[in-house]
């Protein structure tokens, strides 16, 4: 199999994720788009690891998965706190701070 078929698939996921982060305004949906980017990263890492016959890629992917889980956990906590105080998680309404 070609290395590039994996890398191009990952590039598509990455770009869709970037689109999602820029275009979405709901906090949960932005977070899901970030997860798309992180998965693109993992496909890259594992594909390069297989290509270079190096175990580092798999290890890096495992670390990314662990950290992503922690990130989503605290993201949920912050979103919950926001919702409790404000009854909305719409990012365009979060505009107390500007200048």
């Amino acid at each position, binding site marked *: *199999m*070609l*290395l*590039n*078929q*994996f*890398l*191009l*698939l990952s*590039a*598509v*996921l*990455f*770009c*869709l*994720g*970037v*689109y*999602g982060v*820029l*275009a*979405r305004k*709901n906090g*949960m*949906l932005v977070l*899901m*788009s970030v*997860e*798309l980017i992180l*998965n693109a990263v*993992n*496909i890259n890492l*594992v*594909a390069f*690891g*297989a*290509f270079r016959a190096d*175990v*580092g890629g*798999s*290890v890096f992917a*495992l*670390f990314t*998965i*662990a*950290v*992503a*889980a*922690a*990130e*989503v*956990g*605290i993201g*949920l*906590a*912050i*979103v*919950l706190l926001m919702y409790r105080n404000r009854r909305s*998680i719409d990012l*365009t309404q979060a505009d107390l701070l500007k200048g």
Partner: protein
Amino acid sequence: MQLLAQVSSETDLYVAQNIFFAVIAGTMIYAAFRVVTTANVVHAALWLVVVLAGVAVQFLFLGAEFVAVTQVLVYIGAVIVLFLFGVMLTRASMGDDETVAGEKRAMAAIVGVLLFAVMAVALVDSFEDTRVDIDGPQGVVEVSDAIFSQYIVPFEAVSVLLLAALIGAIVVARKD
């Protein structure tokens, strides 16, 4: 799935794998597209499951069994459940989330397409038709040996990180 990786290393044509890959990749791209475009938060989370499962299959193609299993356990098992809890607890409209301004979307779409063009040129230029030979799966043994020797410092740091995230998330999320 060990079989899958073995077959791919023995034959040169990879017809079956390539068809299978194309089907999975197509599904993933469509699902990812729906994740970033659907107006319904619950649907987005469910489409994300399809993408994540597809990524796990890609890991199997590449012979990374352990990462694939972790992907299923952590991502589909934990992260998606967290997302769904988040959707339920914030009572985000189960129906449609009103859409953002078209202008911002167009900007984001331009950025996304340009980025992909750059990436595609860079990747094709760098690797053209390089093949990736998967000589058998990358075993759990090699991965764990690496984690507990070469990568022991980041491994310990990740455990501190998870504990800190746990404590912090409880403090931030609890009612008081």
